[in-house]
């Protein structure tokens, strides 16, 4: 059971209030029709699923109904940071942002 800080409610809230929504920062291609089946398939189906630092989306479903992003260590389940849509993570697999 995770405890997740909602950047909008500005509180640590229980996992029961949230639903997980997959990998963050996947940008939809602007011109899907210009992509080959393989390129479109990469966008559609392939995810990083890293061991370690992962940026992911959460939905505060039983709460403020906002989506936001979390940087989570998939090994320890530690949530290193949460941040709003439009913001960039401070921590990444390459190390902390300068």
């Amino acid at each position, binding site marked *: *059971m*995770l*405890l997740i800080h909602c950047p909008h409610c500005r509180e640590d809230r*229980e996992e029961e209030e949230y*639903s997980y*929504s997959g990998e963050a920062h996947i*940008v*939809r291609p602007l*011109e*899907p*029709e210009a*992509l080959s*089946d393989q390129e*479109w*398939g990469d966008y*559609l*189906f392939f995810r990083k699923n890293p061991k370690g630092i992962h940026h992911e*989306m959460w*939905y505060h*479903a039983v709460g403020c*109904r*906002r*989506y936001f992003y979390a940087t989570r260590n998939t090994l*320890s*389940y530690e*949530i290193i940071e949460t941040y709003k*849509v*439009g913001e960039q993570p401070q921590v990444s697999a390459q190390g902390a942002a300068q």
Partner: protein
Amino acid sequence: MSQINRLNTGARTDSTSRINFTYNGKQMQGVVGDTLASALLANGVNVVGRSFKYSRPRGIVGHGAEEPNAIMQIGSGAATVPNLKATQVELYEGLESASVNGWPNVNFDLMSITGWFGRMMPPGFYYKTFMYPAKLWMTYEHFIRKAAGLGSAPVQDDPDSYDKLNQHCDVLVVGAGPAGLVAAREAARAGARVIIADEQSEFGGSLLASINSIDGQVATSWVDELVAELESFSNVQTLPRSTAFGYYDHNFLGILQRRTDHLGISADSGSRQRLHRVRAKRVILATGAFERPLVFAQNDIPGVMQASSVSTYINRYGVAPGNRMILFTTNDNAYQTAIDWHRAGRAVVAVVDSRSAPSGEIVAVAQEMGIRVIAGSGVIEAQGGKRVRRALVAPLNGDGTEITGVVEKLACDLIACSGGWSPAIHLSSHTGAKPVWDETIIGFKPGQSVQKERSAGACGGTYSLAGCIAEGASAGAEAAKLAGCGDGTVHFPMPQIKEFSEQPAQALFLVPHTKATSRAPSQFVDMQLDVSASGIELAVREGFKSVEHIKRYTAMGFGTDQGKLGNINGMAILANALGQSIEQTGTTIFRPSYSPTTFGAIAGADVGALFDPERYTAVHRWHQEQGAAFEDVGQWKRPWYFPRGGESMQDAVNRECLAVRNSVGILDASTLGKIDIQGPDAAEFITRMYTNSYLKLAPGKCRYGVMLKEDGMIFDDGVCACIGDNHYLMFTTTGGAAGVLAWLELWQQTEWPDLQVYFTSVTDHWTTATITGPNARKVLAKVCDDIELANDAFQFMDWRDGTVAGVAARVFRISFTGELTYEINVPAHYGRHVWEALIAAGEEFDITPYGTESMHVLRAEKGFIIVGQDTDGSMTPADMNMDWVVGKNKTFSFIGKRSLQRSDSVRKNRKQLVGLKTVNGTQVLPEGAQVVFDPEQKIPMSMQGHVTSSYFSSNLGHSIALAVVKGGHGLLGKTVYCPLADGRTIAAEIVSSVFYDPKGERQNVE
């Protein structure tokens, strides 16, 4: 039987207040403050169970959660509870207890004849014997269960209630021994919200059995004062009888509180057990340590006990479990038991100390009392049947691995053992912290913390009382500070404590015997599962090397006691057999639960009517009054059909369907999801989400749309209406409402935040009464005079504001039956009023309420799909023959569009929606039936598709079905076959999926 072993010295029992109870049908007496175990020992009960594999008689060994043998069935009937440890059951008047194994009873056990049979059950027995043939497993299992006995589960419903509390605190202290109590006090003083939990009936831990003095008073009084002080803090919750059974992510712990078990089964008020779901900012583990047993031959005979348990029975409960005791120890600490026994007026035959020259202060005290100390020796074997009669004592070499002299036989009826202490590292282990071996304490200590916790006191390897208290105090102050309370300094002064200084203990994990381990009488490591030292060595000879594998192969530590006593000895024996250090061998990882947790507590209040929310429409009670049968649609309860008289379901559905097509029916459609959409970019956004376009939808107009996931597969469908400028109302399927709203929010919030549009669920706001059938207009006209209802004034796919039965309403002219239909929406608190007005208005047309089953039949007659029934997440609009709903000229590449061109999406032999008409029209295909082309083909047959919807149509007089069949759109007229599980094969013709009114004329009836 009388209480032959009762003393009058128990600090926590009142020997003048008697309690009656039964054990295996026998009337016995205990006293207030007893556990079932202390009462049984007071009554001189030796044998409390039979062992799992060998059916050997077993007695009480410990005094708490570590007890492997005294497993009891408590109570009878519906409220019976199996597999409770007698050491943890508080005695109450009328308690019924029975041992869970032993057949026909524990004292005369037929199974013990199979000490021979036991010889046939070496480690890995299950794997070796039960693999083949699989059929025999049931036979084996029956026999094994009877032989081994694991208690019997009640067959009736649990009469007790359970609940859960979601708790949040700054500091959670697990364990209320000396370290835990002072930790809680420091944290509380610093202003932290504190919860302190202990599995015992009262706080104090080891101090409850201690004769030490603290600050000049007896330890138990010091505890009483400290507990009273804690309870005076408003920011402290004290939870006795509460076991922290699991430590989960982000400092979340499960604590099981037994609230009424000690009052008797099925106490009248409140929950029996309460599950505390605790989220703590900081956790202090003060769970203490378990005394380590000594492994020698026949160490399982009743009368072999833990030394600290013997002291606990004497000092806390006032029970001396025997007369002539031998203490077998590897350390100074256990000498206290010899002193306690001596003071209780019973004979200490000898202290057998494995160390060659014990020289601690307490050793001298014992010797001054005249107690014989046999140094440099060990008890190598216990002898006796249902009770120890003598001990074989032999001199050992310096490291305790060999016998160096003559064996002496000493008569006794109790052997108290102490092999040192093992920290209770279970909860720290749950967090993933890797235990580390510490040679100085000869035990595993908690590893580096991976969560916001620390261990204090004995569970961290600190065994002196002063050390525990000092560590607890600093842990409490520190935890409070880290949780944002106080400055981290210890406030309360350190109490004055007199303790003996101790000399080093000896590591002794397996006491040698005159015979080799493999030939010696069994030297038990895990009593509950009958794992012996020779079994572990055998497993190593058979090639097992990893401690985790050995655990599973021998079943060591798998019992309800989870190896609290035996594990360390077992690992050390394993390490020795592998010729490596304990450190190299490592320990198995403890996982939740620490001790057995009832299913009742895990379920909590979420049972019966509260199992899952049932959502009702505002008309629900009217449906109930009409005798409707209900169907679950998600969490909603929807009327399924309305049987009249003694009608069967089919009769009711036939009647309802005919009524709709011939006159008028009424359906409660309130459960459909409704999402209010507003904003300057609303039309653009909706157009990106649906396959068709909404850019030109005018106010007052509706359009049917299909929503795809990005993979091109149908995900939801429904009508979307333009309410006004930049304002739309989207209908979703009943089950899809929450998912669609989250889906819209996902795209708007994360992908297109620049699009200005807001979504609000308005599902619950509206009651939707759907009236449908050729007389629908006439019914509506009777209760609505401000909407022009003529066909051309209020057209199909229009909606209007108006007043229905005096209530402001939105009326949609859309249709899911193919008939003239009005969906009348009013705010839900008017729902029942408007519904009843429509029923009254429709009386002259015999308006017929119908349920979801008729709704399904009527739409299937029209070939309308139901998302989730005819689709399964792998169907495109083209598969459903719904290419017409896909906008070809939309400028924006709507969600899922690109995927419709993927090679797999345009494949010719995709499963496609068709109608099926059985050759024999009275036969109704089962939904889910597989479709094949060649009924004669050998199994496995080539499956070509499956039936998605199937009904008997009373309007058509024959059965109808929808199916998805590979390449089905090109197979009209082909005969296909559905082989059924009952052996029949039903032939059907592929037909159009529209069975009724293919031109769609009926909805435009004048």
